[in-house]
């Protein structure tokens, strides 16, 4: 009776596992923070950025004495950017790892279902990278973000495109993903308010490298600005193929192309020269930011993309814990709503929805050395 014994074994393992894990969950003097992001699958690069940032933050906070004497422990959780796995890891973080707060989820489509579980369990979550408006629009008290919203970012980009670049014919391309398309739509919405409609609105497929037909289409509509909502993995080949086909239209994109890999993906600095992007305030201009970046560099890692966002998220979470001397959702949320936190990305405060009060998106431009600077 193989069937029976397997089931029995299964139940036994589960029970033993649950009991064992429950036992050591709340070891004295440790506060656990879950760091959830994709570590496998196509978005794995971002999961690593999250983890590096959070790990470094925990290390630094512990070195400075922890929170009221308790040490921080970060727990890695992999959601592969799939809603299914996001729910699974969220439950695992709550039930097995018993974390007291979560910094996480990269894809908005993971953050949304996972936050339901955190909310149910009474644990506060702050996402370093989910920019979709829907994340904080569902009336959940314990959902915050360290990044801006697509609509804020899109508005900054649209203002720049219309007012500074004086664009008349704007081609909009997105990657049919919640971040990319959301950003593109937000940009278009603001652009329409300013009285300009897009001449082209098309989606490309994530994971592909050949966008030549799309590029030729851009050429045929004679666009003077190309706005791309998506990640550097597609932005790189796209901008390269635009330039190769002799299109000199300005290329504008969002914060997700902020990575050294963008240059690699585009085939070298000469293709990214002149590319505009929206991104938060440069942390290098802040003293705290400089110090942290030096620490990363000393350990042989160049912080990029969401590394510092994740670092700042852990800072904000621990600050709330420190100030309220509790890990209770309500207390922490109330405190975060009414106080500001000094993070590696500058001073941050949150509105009643959990969004950043001040969106600090500004325009950057890449140069022919493969670096970018604030305009």
């Amino acid at each position, binding site marked *: 009776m193989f069937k029976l014994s397997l089931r029995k074994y299964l139940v036994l393992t589960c029970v033993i596992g649950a009991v064992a894990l429950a036992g050591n969950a709340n070891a004295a003097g440790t506060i656990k923070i879950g760091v959830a992001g994709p570590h496998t699958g196509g978005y794995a690069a971002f999961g*690593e950025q999250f983890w590096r940032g959070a790990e470094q933050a925990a290390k630094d906070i512990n070195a400075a004495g922890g929170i009221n004497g308790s040490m921080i422990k970060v727990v890695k959780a992999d959601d592969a950017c799939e809603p299914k796995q996001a729910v699974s890891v969220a439950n695992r973080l709550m039930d097995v790892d018993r974390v007291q707060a979560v910094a996480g989820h990269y894809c908005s489509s993971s953050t949304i279902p996972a936050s339901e579980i955190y909310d149910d369990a009474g644990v506060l979550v702050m996402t370093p990278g989910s920019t979709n408006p829907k994340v904080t629009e569902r009336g959940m008290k314990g959902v915050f973000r360290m990044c801006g919203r697509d609509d804020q970012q899109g508005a900054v980009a649209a203002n720049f495109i219309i007012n500074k670049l004086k664009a008349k014919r704007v081609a909009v391309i997105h990657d049919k993903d919640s971040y990319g398309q959301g950003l593109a739509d937000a940009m278009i919405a603001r652009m329409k308010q300013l009285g300009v409609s897009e001449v082209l609105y*098309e989606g490309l*497929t994530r*994971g592909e*490298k050949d966008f030549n037909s799309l590029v030729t289409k851009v050429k*045929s509509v004679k666009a003077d600005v190309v706005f791309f909502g998506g990640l550097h*993995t597609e932005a790189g080949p796209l901008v390269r193929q635009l330039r190769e*086909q002799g299109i000199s239209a300005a290329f504008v994109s969002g914060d997700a192309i902020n990575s050294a890999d963008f240059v690699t993906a585009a*085939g070298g600095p000469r293709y990214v020269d002149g590319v505009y992007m929206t991104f938060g305030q440069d942390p290098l201009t802040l003293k705290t930011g400089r110090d942290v970046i030096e620490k990363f560099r000393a350990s042989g890692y160049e912080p990029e993309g969401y590394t510092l966002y994740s670092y700042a998220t852990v800072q904000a979470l621990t600050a709330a814990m420190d100030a309220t001397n509790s890990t209770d959702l309500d207390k922490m949320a109330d405190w975060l709503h009414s106080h500001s936190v000094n993070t590696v990305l500058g001073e941050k405060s949150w509105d009643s929805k959990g969004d950043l009060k001040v969106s600090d998106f500004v325009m950057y431009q890449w140069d022919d050395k493969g670096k970018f600077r604030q305009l």
Partner: protein
Amino acid sequence: MDSYIIGQQLLNGLTLGSIYGLIAIGYTMVYGIIGMINFAHGDIYMISAYLTAIILAVIFSFGVTSLPFALLVTLLLTMVITGVYGWAIERVAYRPLRGSTRLAPLISAIGMSLVLQNYVQVSQGARNQGIPILIDGVVRLGGEEQFVQITHIQILIVLASFIGMGVLTYIIQKTSLGRQCRATQQDQKMAAILGINTNRIISTVFVIGSAMAALAGVLVTLNYGSFDFYIGFIIGIKAFTAAVLGGIGSLPGAMLGGIVLGMSEGLFAGFVSADYKDVFAFSLLVLVLIFRPSGLLGKPEIEKV
């Protein structure tokens, strides 16, 4: 619509189609000989993209300055190593399953695809990687503003795919190895009785298919310059679709299927909607198969009663 735009779109489709065709050859050969869908083939292509970048980097670190030499060495080494990959995968994951159900190797191939992707991710990291631009000439026809263009590397891709297909068709049709392949394809048991080492023939087919994927990998990497551990998945499905569209088991069919798929995708994206280009590509496949059940160049299946 301006004619130069149409011309450019046709060229875009041709290049993309040639890439599909090159990879589709591997699918079609493997399918032809043992009737299995080698889902790991797209990941073999991904491996070859990594190998290209790694070998190029090593060669340049030795201070080699001759570009043709570097490219040739890279191409050869990549094809050899990728061939070894193909051989080893067949030996480890598919050969033990020969003679069991038809679906067992399919599942094994899906598992192998996961293994290859994640092996590369674990050892090379999840980041997007790239190589610098090595060949960047362009042929332009037409005026300052309105022109049709094709880059040198794109010309190379189209040529390589047609030459590759030609050489392989010649090998299959005219050489002793080709005869043995065809015999194995027709009837494995009978071929074995006639003294053909069918295991060796099957391994050879895997090696050749992988080497073709490597050829595609090197050229495509030179063309787009960017890759990650996940690129094999989408292009693998597309190439397999191309192989079926052209008539699986037929080498010219793989090429034709690739070009038809590439062209229809390119033209649809260019003139109708890029959002729905994949929907269009798959619908085209379904339609072709409804009216020509064995693909464009496949031999019609005669029902033997």
